[in-house]
């Protein structure tokens, strides 16, 4: 059923049926993704949760996927839009392979393609509700970039989406160095993910870490972080004031 709303000066405002054709708000969302460049390549971490509003609906969503041989895409935001983007990238890589000329898409090219897609969708008022993190290594060059749902795109040595902007970025700005080894890089990412686990309500304690180097792209098995809850003020908060809160 379609109907139009008339306002005083006689112009049509909006068609209700057309509204259902565009993304108005996200439904199933993933929380932050954190990524850093390190000595041999790029490391990315994200948890495996998919929240449906305030319910933790899905606990086994892989929010990081390999694209071609050289890049890895991590996404936060609407999961269905992430799956759509993976389909677009599948089509892109397939068409590229059909040329059969030995060339393969590197992270820079994929990042550029994603920026164009996100910006154009935003211009049509029908955004893909994601913040994407694209990392990879091709021909010895490390690359790490980010695209938001309104098409803001940039590259940096360390990026974070969502809550990670507020909680992980300060730590990374202080402690990131150009020559981090693999173990140090993983420890730094785990530090950020632990803070996010404590302070982001939609984070879960089941995360994956992905490694991108010249040899290729691997995503680790899911694992959990150790947390500490034994502070004296947590176990006995009303010492000196029985009955207070």
């Amino acid at each position, binding site marked *: 059923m379609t109907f139009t709303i008339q306002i005083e000066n006689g112009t049509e405002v909006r068609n209700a049926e057309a509204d259902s054709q565009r993304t108005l708000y996200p439904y199933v969302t993933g929380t932050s993704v954190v990524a850093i460049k390190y000595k041999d390549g790029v490391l990315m971490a994200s948890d495996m949760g998919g929240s449906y509003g305030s319910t933790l609906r899905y606990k086994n969503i892989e929010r990081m996927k390999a694209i071609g041989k050289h890049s890895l895409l991590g996404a936060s935001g609407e999961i269905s839009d992430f799956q759509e983007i993976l389909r677009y990238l599948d089509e892109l890589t397939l068409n590229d392979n059909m040329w059969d000329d030995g060339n393969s898409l590197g992270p820079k090219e994929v990042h550029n393609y994603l920026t164009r897609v996100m910006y154009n969708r935003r211009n049509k008022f029908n955004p893909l509700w994601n913040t994407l993190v694209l990392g990879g290594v091709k021909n010895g060059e490390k690359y790490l970039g980010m695209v938001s749902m309104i098409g803001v795109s940039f590259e940096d040595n360390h990026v974070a989406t969502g809550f990670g902007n*507020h*909680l*992980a*970025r*300060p*730590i990374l*700005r*202080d402690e990131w160095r150009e020559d981090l080894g693999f173990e140090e890089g993983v420890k730094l990412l785990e*530090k*950020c993910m*632990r*803070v996010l686990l*404590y*302070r982001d309500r939609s984070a879960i304690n089941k995360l994956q870490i992905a490694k991108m180097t010249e040899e290729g792209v691997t995503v680790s098995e899911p694992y959990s972080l150790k947390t500490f809850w034994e*502070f*004296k*003020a*947590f176990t006995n*908060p*009303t*010492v*000196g*004031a029985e009955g*207070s*809160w």
Partner: protein
Amino acid sequence: MSQSAVDVPPKGGFSFDLCKRNDMLTQKGLKAPSFLKTGTTIVGLIFKDGVILGADTRATEGPIVADKNCEKIHYMAPNIYCCGAGTAADTEAVTDMVSSQLRLHRYQTSRDSRVITALTLLKKHLFSYQGHVSAALVLGGVDITGPHLHTIYPHGSTDTLPFATMGSGSLAAMSVFEAKYKEGLTRDEGIQLVAEAICSGIFNDLGSGSNVDICVITKGNKEYLRNYMEPNPRTYVSSKGYSFTKKTEVLLTKITPLLERVEITEVGEAMEE
């Protein structure tokens, strides 16, 4: 209609009579003036011998920095200090008020103030104003029962914590605390961690900036380290000073008083002791 003979005394708390008028004005397009907010990073942590409080020193009025070096750590009692975030007037007034109440209470009971006393007085006041007094506080001190650290939210709820952050820079500071806090820190480790958390707020949050203030409270002793760190100095200061151009003449400065000073001699009896 005749007025009643006995006037009803005015009720306490806010009177919301003008809210309807304000709503009508905002509908007509009038923008209400914004409050001077502190847009802050304030932190506190409990270490081995007591409590350390920290704060930045920037006060904002919307996008403008109104005060580059304000004091956000307020005195409550010789052994209790309170950091304040939110509307600057609210934090000043509420901490002043409770500080006076605590002093009167000390005179009456002949005992040192306890942190939970300050907590309950603040909590009662903020709750009765239902969140309209926009003061978010980090209250810390050492009393006879030991060191205590509490956070108080504008609506009147409180938390007791080993480490706490409030204000717009609270997430940046909390990420430092969550990553690095341990129990049983020494004084120097604690001060360094607090300074690191405030710096994290200063550099990663736009509402916080300028310098770091620190207050260390231990049993029987307190140290207020105003401007403990100044990580944002003016980088370019001309070494020549201000040099006048050749055409300008510097005139002599001469002060001529306008009136003769009149001396008043005391007449009459001195006041009774």
